[in-house]
């Protein structure tokens, strides 16, 4: 029976995803577009935390740098969409490389602390260097129409359907790429590092280089996610690269099940929609975000997938006995 459940669920999910912008209004489409961009962001983080077992607290830095790179290219340098997007992705990859390069030089938890330091540093720079980043106000993206291909324009006005489907397509492509990446020889090495780093070192793998590499690959995807998120929102702000967002993506990844790729994606979409709703209810939503972080760590460290799996096991045992 379970062999039928999975394809059926997948088909229902795909149909819902395809029809969503026609079922809901403009606001629902906008929320979903942004949430899916955050889902893509969580998917990229799963390559770092879930697949390689690296704890990085600077993933939102890459997400934000990608978006700022594109926004600066479009508004300050007056470049077109594609060169600006390339600039954003390149900036995110360069940032990922720099953070990784210095972080792998330290041992053990030094890696984590170095990512914390970089995340805080970039956040302060974005706040203070107002001539480049607009400081607290951020950068408004003046163009809502993006020359995607010659003759094909995408409308990135808030809640547009073409924006939604673009993000869905990017998420699907990134998911397929990630699955291929994890299954490849390189992915096997990364999983080996997660399984036993010392053994991988002893076998002659240059573990540090692999860590930097996965951070750069995930950084490129995070940069794309940041660009899509910024386009759907119409502006880039410091909120996109706060340490808070880096912590949230860790929580989403844990909730969804590290290493499952689809799990963190789904968890990020649902959780970010939840936070969006919460933000509309109360200005104290950050208090709730803190409480959720705490509760997830204490009660759901194996994620929702782990809990559901355990419940299913128990149910299976009871029906058998």
């Amino acid at each position: 029976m379970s062999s039928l459940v999975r394809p059926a669920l997948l088909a229902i999910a795909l149909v819902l995803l395809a029809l969503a912008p026609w079922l809901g209004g403009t606001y629902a489409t906008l929320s979903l577009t942004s949430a899916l961009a955050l889902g893509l962001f969580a998917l990229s983080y799963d390559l770092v935390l879930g697949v390689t077992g690296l704890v990085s607290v600077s993933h939102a830095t890459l997400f934000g740098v990608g978006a700022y790179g594109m926004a600066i290219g479009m508004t300050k340098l007056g470049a077109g969409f594609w060169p600006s997007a390339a600039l954003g992705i390149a900036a995110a990859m360069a940032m990922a490389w720099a953070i990784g390069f210095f972080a792998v030089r330290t041992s053990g938890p030094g890696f984590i602390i170095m990512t914390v330091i970089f995340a805080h540093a970039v956040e302060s720079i974005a706040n203070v260097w107002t001539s480049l980043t607009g400081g607290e106000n951020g950068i408004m993206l003046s163009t809502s129409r993006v020359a995607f291909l010659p003759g094909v324009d995408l409308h990135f006005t808030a809640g547009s359907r073409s924006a939604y489907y673009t993000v869905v397509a990017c998420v699907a492509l990134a998911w397929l790429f990630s699955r291929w990446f994890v299954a490849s020889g390189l992915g096997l090495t990364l999983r080996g590092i997660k399984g036993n780093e010392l053994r991988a070192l002893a076998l002659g793998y240059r573990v540090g280089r692999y860590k930097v590499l996965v951070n750069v690959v995930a950084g490129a995807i995070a940069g794309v996610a940041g660009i899509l998120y910024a386009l759907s929102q119409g502006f880039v702000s410091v909120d996109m690269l706060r340490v808070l967002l880096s912590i949230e993506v860790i929580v989403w990844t844990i909730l969804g099940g590290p290493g499952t790729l689809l799990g963190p994606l789904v968890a990020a979409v649902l959780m970010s929609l939840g936070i969006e709703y919460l933000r509309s209810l109360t200005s104290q939503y950050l208090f709730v975000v803190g409480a959720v972080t705490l509760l997830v760590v204490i009660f759901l460290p194996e994620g929702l997938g782990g809990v559901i799996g355990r419940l299913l096991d128990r149910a299976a045992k009871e029906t058998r006995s």
Partner: protein
Amino acid sequence: MTADVLVLQLANGLSFGVIFALIASGITLMWGIMDFINMAHGDFYMLGAYGIWLGLVIGIGSFWLALPLAVLGVVVIGLLLRVSVLRPIFDRPPLHTLLATYGAGLMLQQAVLSIFGPFSKEIALPVTGQIVLGPLRYPAYRVVVIVVGLVLIAAVGVLIQRSTYGLWIRAVAQDRAMTAALGVPVPRVYTVVFALGSGLAALGGVLAAPLFGVSPTMGGEVILLAFIVVMIGGLGNYLGSVVGGVLIGEVIALGAIWLQPTVAYLVALGLLLVLLLVRPAGLLRSAR
């Protein structure tokens, strides 16, 4: 620039450095003994500053009477945090304790924000005079900060080196399982370290409050420098965090002569990055 400015900024750097060292030494102690990255450490510092402000507002007339009360209050909050949410997850990997302390810190920050409001509060200098040394005049309170901070840092250092608890602390840092097998009450050692760390950060906040003001976000502003100090000193190295603190304090103060404050922070970060290339284990070799 004259020599006067240089000397004044060197002295300012020492007072900054002592405050950084008070925060960083707690982070480094907690890591060294409990494998625990405390993301809420900046919030203990912030709570210390609010504690002294509250003490003075509710009518404790003397700064020096309110100081121990504020520090004690923060230690109590820290220990409550430890027994309520952190005890069940202490043996988990660093990722979990990092997330838990971040969540707790965020809640503390939001609580302070909603109770006391977003605006910065001022505290009058408890010591107003100036110290005159030849042609130089220097605010006496900053000298007090340097002296009080250094004395207490040294006191905790002596405690770690000489007392029974200090012996246990160092033993747990070296080999937790063996120390527990020899009958040392490891959970109680953790509690002592947690109290010491949160107390040191609170003291930093109390001493900093009259200089920099009191606001809900002050913890976030200082935590970047504190982590840089911890890495420069070598993670888990108490003396290293003190030396690193003073070093970064001087960098910030001297940088402020020519640069904007944030750019001076970046110089501090650059210093750490260069150091990582030259001496990856920190300025002093790690004590662990």
